[in-house]
C-alpha cells in the first residue's frame, strides 16, 4: 500500500515537473533576455513554441525580442531580417489565436520599427498599417492598457512630426494607467502584462 502511495506520489511529482517545464523554460528564456542574450532567448522561445504546439505565447515573445532588439542596432540588413523573422513568428502566433489584441499590438510595434529605422522608405506605407492595427486591437479589447498606451505614444510621435501638441494625447496615457490598474489577473501563465514601466517615459511628453 505504502509502495503504491509512494509510487503515486512519484508519478504525480513527475507530471508536475513536466507541466512546469513550460514555465521553467519560459522563465529561463526571460532570464536570458534579461541578461543581454536576446538571440539565446529567441532560440529558447522558438524551441518552446515548437514543442508546445498551439500556444501563441512563446511565438509572441520570440517576435517581441526581435523587434526590441532592432531598436538598438544600425545594420540595415540585420534589422530587415530580424523584422522579417519577427513577422513570421507573429504569423505563427496568429494561426493559434485569431483575433488576439495582443498579437495585433505586437504587429503594430513591428511596423513602428520599420518606420523608425527607415522613415523615407517605410513612413508612408507602414504608418497607415500601424494605425489600423492599433484600432483593430482596441476594437477587440477596448480596455487593453498596452493598446491604449502604445497607440497614444504613436500618436504623440506623429503629432510632434506635424508640429502639433503631443499633450493632446496625455489623457489617453492616463486612461492606460487606469487600465493597467484594472487589468484582470489572467490565469494563463506568461500572458502579456508589460507596459506599465513605459508610462513614465511616455509621460515626458506631457510636461
Amino acid at each position, binding site marked *: 500500500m505504502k509502495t503504491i502511495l509512494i509510487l503515486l506520489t512519484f508519478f504525480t511529482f513527475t507530471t508536475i515537473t513536466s507541466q512546469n517545464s513550460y514555465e521553467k523554460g519560459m522563465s529561463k528564456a526571460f532570464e536570458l533576455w534579461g541578461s543581454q542574450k536576446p538571440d539565446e532567448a529567441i532560440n529558447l522561445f522558438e524551441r518552446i513554441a515548437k514543442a508546445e504546439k498551439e500556444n501563441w505565447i512563446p511565438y509572441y515573445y520570440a517576435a517581441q525580442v526581435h523587434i526590441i532588439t532592432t531598436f538598438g542596432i544600425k545594420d540595415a540588413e540585420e534589422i530587415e531580417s530580424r523584422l522579417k523573422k519577427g513577422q513570421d513568428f507573429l504569423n505563427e502566433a496568429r494561426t493559434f489565436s485569431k483575433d488576439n489584441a495582443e498579437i495585433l499590438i505586437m504587429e503594430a510595434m513591428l511596423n513602428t520599427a520599420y518606420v523608425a529605422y527607415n522613415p523615407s522608405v517605410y513612413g508612408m*506605407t507602414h504608418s497607415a498599417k500601424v494605425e489600423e492595427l492599433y484600432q483593430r486591437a482596441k476594437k477587440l479589447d477596448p480596455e487593453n492598457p498596452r493598446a491604449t498606451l502604445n497607440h497614444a505614444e504613436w500618436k504623440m510621435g506623429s503629432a510632434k512630426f506635424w*508640429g502639433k501638441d503631443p499633450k493632446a494625447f496625455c489623457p489617453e496615457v492616463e486612461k492606460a494607467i487606469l487600465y493597467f490598474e484594472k487589468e484582470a489577473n489572467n490565469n494563463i501563465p506568461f500572458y502579456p502584462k508589460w507596459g506599465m514601466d513605459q508610462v513614465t517615459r511616455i509621460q515626458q511628453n506631457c510636461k
Partner: protein
Amino acid sequence: MRRTLTLAFTLFTLLSNAQTTITGNVIDPSGTPIQGANIYLDGTYDGASSDENGSFSFATTETGIQTLIISFLSFETFYLTTELTKMSPLAITLKEDVNSLGSVILNAGTFAAGDNSKASVLTPLDIVTTAGSNGDYIAALQTLSGTSNVAEDGRLFVRGGDANETNVYIDGLRVFQPFSATANNIPTRGRFSSFLFEGTNFSTGGYSAEYGDALSSVLLLNTIDEPDQEKTDLQFINVGLGLGNTQKWKKNSLSVNAFYVNLKPYQDIIEQRVDWIKPFESLTGEAVYRHHFKSGTLKVYGGLTYTDFKLIQEDINTPEGINLNLKNRNLYLNTSYKGSLGNDWTITAGTSFANDHNDILFVTTDVTNNENSFHGKLKLRKRFSNRFKLNFGAEQFLTSFSEETENPDFGAFQTSYDNNSTALYTEANIFFSKKLALQTGIRGVHNTLLKYTKISPRASLAYKTTSKSQVSLAYGDFYQAPQQEVLKYNFDLEPEKSSHYILNYLYQNNGRTFRAEGYYKSYDGLIKYDTNSPMFNSVFNNNGDGYATGIDIFWRDNKSIKDLDYWVSYSYLDTKRDYRNYPDRATPNFAAKHNLSLVTKYWIGDWKSLLSTTYNFGSGRPYNNPNETLFQNQKTRTFNTLNFSWAYLISQQKILYFSVSNALGFDNVFNYQYANTPDSNGTFSRRAIRPTADRFFILGFFWTISDNKTDNQLDNL
C-alpha cells in the same frame, strides 16, 4: 522495506531521468563557426544555442529515434533523424538559404520598384513624386537609364527601340492600349491611375520567357493585394476632378476611382501652340475588387475611358491646317487568380479583355475602327527546393480588328483581320549557391494569321562579387508581330526579331545604388514599305534590320545629405536601323545619342513640404532634311527641361500641390516637318515640331478622408 523502496525510488529516478548529452559544432560552408544557431530535438524543450565557436551541448532525457533540428537566420534549416545515442558528436555544415537577404539577384535588364523586392531601386512612392511626371507613372520611368526622352510622344522608348516595342502588363496580363488616345506630337499618358499599383518591374531588355511579342522591353505592374484601410480620396486640380473610395469587408475589398479631365478652362488662360476647337476632355472610371480565399487571391480590375477632342493640326503642306476630331472609348477588364495548390505548387491564372473603339474625322475622311483583344494565361510554378524552381505556362492571344474608312471622293473602304497566337514557355531558376544563380527559359509562339512558329531562348546569369556588388549577364531572342497599321493591309509577313546581349554591374550599399549596364541589341526582319506611311497599295517586306548598343548608368543616393534623395541616369545610345521607308540604315528621330536625367527630392520638415526637381537633357535628335543629299543626317538643337513640384502638407490628410514643367522655358525642338514639294527656289521649306506649350502648370488640392486620419495622397502625385 524502506531501504528497498529508497533503492527502487532512486533507480526509477535514474532510469526515467537517464540523460543523454548531445554535443557538436555548427559551421557555415566556408568553415566559419556559426554563433547563435538554435539546436533542439523536435517536439521537446531540449536544446541549446551554439556559442562563439559554433559549439553546443545539451542534455536530454529522451530516448530512441529523435529528430534534431538546427536553424539559423539566412541558412537552410538542418534536420537529422536518428537514434539519439548516435547524435554525438556532430559536425554540421549549414547550407546558405538562397532566399535570404544578401543573395545574388537575377536583375540584368531590370529596374524593380517595390517594397520588398531585393532588386528594388525605386519605391512606388518615388515614381509618383517625381517632378514632371504629373501623376503619370510612365513619365517617371522616363527618368531611368535606358529610356530616350521623346517628350512629344509620352510613351516609352527603350534602347533604340520605338514605342511599339514595349508591352505593358497588369498582374501578368497584357494591357492592349495602355496609353490614352491622342493626336500626333501631343504627348499621351498612361491610362491607369498610379495609386492602384504597389509594384513595378521595368525591364529594359533580356526579360523573362514568360513574356513575348515585344522587341525591346516589358513593363510589369502589379495591383495592390490588400488596401490598408477604408478611405475616400478627393482631388481638385486645375485641369480636372477626381474621386476615389475604398471599402473593406470580411475577405473582400473594393476600390473605385473616377477622374474627369477638361483642358478647356486651362487653355483659355494659357496660350497653346495647337489650335484646339474642342480641347481634350476625358472621363475615366476604374474599379478593383479583391477577394482572399484560404490559399489564394482573386483580383478583378475594370477600367473605362472616354476621350474626345477636336483640333486643327498644323501642317507644312496644308496652310489652313488639318482638321482632326477624335472620339475614343476604351474598356479594359483584367481578372487574375494567384494561389497555392499545396506541395510547393503555385498557380496563376487570368484573362484580360479590351475593347477599343475610335471614331476619327480627319478633314473629310471618316474612320471608324474597333478592336477586341483577349489574353488568357495559365502559369504553374513548382518549388522543388529553395535552389530549384520551375515555371511553365501557356497563353492565348486573340485580336479582332475592323476598320471602315469613308471619304466623299474615294468612297468606302473596309479592312479587318483576326490576329491570334498561342504561346508556351518554361523557365527554370537555379541557385548554385548564395552567390551564383541562373535563370534559363524557352518560349515558343505560333501565330495563325501570319502562319509562323518561332522559338526564342532566354538566359540570365548572376554572380555576387562582394557582399555589396554583383555582375550579371543576360541573353534573349525576341519576336514581335507587325503592328496594326501594317496588318490592316498585309498578312503575308514574318515577325520582326531582336536579340539582346546584356552585361550588368550592380552595387548597393546602405541607401546608395550604382548600376551600370552595357548592351548590344540586333534587329532583323524589320518591316519596310515603299510609301510614306503604310497604305492599302504599299509593297511590304521583312528586309529591314538594325542594331542598338550603349551604356546605361544609374546612381541613387538617399543617405549622404540629410532629407535629400536624388538619382542620376545617363544613357549613351548608338543605333541605326533600316525600316519603314528608310533608303538605308539611319538613326531614327527618337534616338538621341545622350540622355541625362537628374531627379532630386528634398523634404523640408519645418515647411511640411516635399520639393522635387527633375532636369532632363537630350543631345540633338536626328532629322531628315530633303535639301541635303544624305538621309537623316541633320540634328536638332539639344533638349533641356527643368521641372519643379512642391507638395505642401497642410495637415496629415490635406495636400496642396503645385508643379510647373519646363520652369525655365527652354525652347525645345523635337523634329522638323518638311514640305512634300520644293518651293519656287527649289528648296523644301519646313516647320519645327515643338511642345504644345512651353510650360505646363498644375495646381491641386488632395484630400483624404479616413477613420484613422493618417493616410494621404502623396503617393498619387
